């Protein structure tokens, strides 16, 4: 009863290329200091996710996957960056963030370790699929994307990079998702994308309010609420 994915070698290779570049763009989000550069890497990553969805949707033809790619382009490549640009002040947007938890080389080494870890964690999963297919590329890459997004979230202290980390996690989950669940009912995917959009909007509002209240978007300094001695 196994659903086979018979893809042509060309598509498989192109998809593998997208996967490789996807990882590199995830590293880009981790390693760039400027918020604008991080955002650009995020846009590239979202485009790569969309292209993987398009490639996998060609053979066997799947409208669902094309829809996933389309939604992804509309929300993450066009709408999200526009929203962020509008909501966050230009000064913050182009500023070089110096308040990272680790410096860039350490971050990159940690990111590398996470990527290797993701490969070894997902190895037993992909072995359950007897036929060699695109799953072998997309699942480890997607898991690595998820891990790197989580790492970005932990390591960056500004509001916008944290937001990008969250969205990169979502990207990673979907990069695996387009390969392992290509026939998921479309309605679910629409709602998922809608969800992300709405949540982004909420976070956007919060970013602005944090900005107004505390005068910075550096959420790493939020420490009013905690146990122990109060100021």
């Amino acid at each position, binding site marked *: 009863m196994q659903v086979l994915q018979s893809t042509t070698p060309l598509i498989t290779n192109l998809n593998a290329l997208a996967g490789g570049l996807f990882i590199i763009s995830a590293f880009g989000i981790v390693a760039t200091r400027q918020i604008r550069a991080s955002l650009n890497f995020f846009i590239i990553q979202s485009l790569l996710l969309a292209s993987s969805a398009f490639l996998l949707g060609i053979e066997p033809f799947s409208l669902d996957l094309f829809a996933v790619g389309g939604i992804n382009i509309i929300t993450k490549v066009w709408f999200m960056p526009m929203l962020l640009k509008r909501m966050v002040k230009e000064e913050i947007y182009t500023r070089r963030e110096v308040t990272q938890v680790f410096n860039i080389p350490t971050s990159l080494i940690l990111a590398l370790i996470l990527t290797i870890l993701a490969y070894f964690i997902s190895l037993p999963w992909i072995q359950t699929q007897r036929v060699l297919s695109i799953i072998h590329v997309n699942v480890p890459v997607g898991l690595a994307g998820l891990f790197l997004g989580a790492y970005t979230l932990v390591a960056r202290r500004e509001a916008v990079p944290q937001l990008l980390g969250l969205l990169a996690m979502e990207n990673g989950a979907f990069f695996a998702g387009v390969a392992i669940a290509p026939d998921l009912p479309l309605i679910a995917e629409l709602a998922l994308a809608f969800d992300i959009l*709405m949540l982004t909007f909420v976070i956007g509002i919060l970013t602005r309010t944090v900005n107004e209240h505390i005068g910075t978007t550096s959420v790493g300094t939020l420490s009013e609420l905690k146990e122990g001695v109060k100021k």
Partner: protein
Amino acid sequence: MILILFVSIVLVAALVSSFSKNDSRMATYITLLSSIITLGLSVHIALDIVFSSSHTIVAIADWVALNALGALILLLVSFVYFTASIFSIGYMRFEKPGSFRTYYINFNLFVFSMLIIPLIQEPNSVWIAVELTTLFSVLLVGFENTSAAIEAAWKYIVLTIMGAAIALLGFLILYWAARQVGIEHYTWDSLLIAAPYMSPVLLKASFVFILVGFGAKVGLVPLHTWLPDAHSQAPSPVCALLSGVETTAILYVILRLLPIVAAASAVDVNTWLIVVGLISVGSAAFLLLQVKDFKRLFAFSTVEHMGIILVAFGLGGNLAHIAAILQIIGHAITKSFAFYAAGGVLLLMGTREISKVRGLIRKSPVSAIALLLGGLAIAGAPPFALFLSEFSIIKAGLFKGEYITVGLLVIFIAIAFFAIMNHVSRMVFGRDDAKSSIDNKSYSLPISSKITFAIAFIPIIAFGLYIPEVLYKLTILAAATVGGW
């Protein structure tokens, strides 16, 4: 059909609230009315489930249905919705008289999103419903619009979306595992039937991702850090919903997954549950000792109780499962009461700091007694509901021969008991220092708060002494859906 009607009432209440004005109290009464109808209907649905032969209600095949565990969740959510609606009357009049519309739209939508979680049968849609609870509650957490409230809302949304992304991959892997065996209708029930044929590796992976991801929302250590912030900064009636039933509603999703994963041989879920649960109980017990804020006190106690529930499910067997369901019931009703009591104190004293509240019994006997009873009940003192369920969990554990687990659990519960009672008794009986006794203003609670105390307290004492036959039947049926018989 009744299920569709049931959820649409809350939706209508949200819609009507959205047409009312921000300074008009119409939304208050609409919400109260809707909560009374919802509670009545949920009792009716629960009775239907207990007395029907199949113990399920199906509204739309493969999409909307309800089993015994779901009915229990509906019952708890509706009850806390009802009491929170009453408490909101006084809260809104005193604290935020100008934002009725904003508050009640989100309040009703938040309840709606919790009510649909047990109704939806398609797992991926359940994930969406869980995301809706985050979406609608985040504005309520930041409702008071102070910098602390915004900070709490930010932490809440960042950590829970992070959890959601992790859980999303878990759900996708679950779907992958189901696809490999070719399931026709993708529902919880069909997953349970197909589980023995599904790949154990994938099931295990998806369970770990969903446990970690939704664990963030349930408040399991180490992703619990948002919980005390959000649960302390939100308006008190919202705290009751967040802490009392939202955590339970999310836990329900993990409980639906539990028998599916357990059905695949070679996956030992129980040990993980015990380890994760004990870590949560232990960390919460020690954090409880050093809290400075009485709403955070009850928030940490939520982390503790979620841990206890997980340990109880991890012990396995029907005795432990029934005890765990009783603990879920006890926690929902007691925690909401504790937050009403804390909310009453906050309304009166205008501070959340434990050290600034002393000698409450002389200032406002009603709120002092409520706080004392709430503290005793949530800490697990007899003769309240949680004592009974914690005792049953310990008994079930000893029966199973899990002496180390039970020993640790008892130690942690004892520490938590000491911590909670230490703080509460100092607030209630402690000597007033000169500073805070200068003001001689009269302390009086809104009448709606007193009514809430009375109504919310009835089940706590009643279920501590005697569990009605019907409810016990529902508990057994609910425990059976989690498996382990």
